[in-house]
């Protein structure tokens, strides 16, 4: 079965920073969606978190996450709108957190599941990597995806690219 992986659109944050990045309207032309992000924020911290909303909603999200910090025992917990780790202003200069988020059957009429694979990056003592499975308990087709940092704004050169995957 032939499968396509097509870039829908990409965004790069300019010198002024941005409060959030939003993809809209997303047509139902593909089977799945994949969002690849490389983010750094202006927050006064080493790292932070990307937060997701779908179709303008931040409710009815649930999920599980496992994560590690490069030392110590990895941990697991529950998530709601968490969408990955980012680098913040105190991380090594010019480094970014990287995440991929995969949305299967995003235009279907069932609740929307997704998976997250994420790492932060800094040449310090602590950096994070995580895997998560999320669920948006909503049967609407996903037409808008927004990513927001939990603190500060997205810094220059942060990028987000949305791909559509089509099964022929």
């Amino acid at each position, binding site marked *: 079965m032939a499968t396509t992986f097509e870039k829908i659109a990409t965004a790069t944050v300019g010198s*002024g920073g941005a409060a959030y990045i*939003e993809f809209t309207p997303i047509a139902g032309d593909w089977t799945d969606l994949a969002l690849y992000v490389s983010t750094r924020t202006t927050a006064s911290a080493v790292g932070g978190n990307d*937060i997701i909303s779908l179709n303008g909603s931040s409710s009815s999200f649930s999920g599980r996450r496992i994560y590690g910090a490069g030392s110590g025992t990895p941990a697991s917990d529950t998530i709601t709108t968490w969408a990955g780790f980012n680098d913040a202003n105190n991380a090594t200069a010019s480094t970014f957190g990287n995440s991929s988020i995969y949305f299967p059957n995003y235009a279907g009429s069932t609740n929307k599941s997704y998976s997250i694979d994420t790492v932060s990056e800094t040449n310090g003592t602590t950096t994070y990597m995580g895997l998560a499975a999320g669920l948006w308990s909503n049967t609407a087709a996903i037409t808008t995806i927004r990513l927001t940092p939990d603190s500060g704004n*997205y810094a220059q050169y942060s990028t987000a690219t949305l791909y559509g995957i089509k099964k022929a």
Partner: protein
Amino acid sequence: MADTKIIVNCETGEVTEVALTAEEIEQREADRIAYEAQKAEEATNAALRAEQKAGLLARLGITAEEAELLLS
């Protein structure tokens, strides 16, 4: 502080940088506070659970590793 948002039109590929409205700035702050409150609640619950677990192990007089062994 950037009070702008980046909107990517997936039909045209056009990327625009738009100033946040006053309502959006208020909503962003409300969302941030709500998220921090949620994380604080989760941390409190985790600490409480760890405290309860430690108390239970102390009452039983066994270590966490011994408790795991019992449950395996």
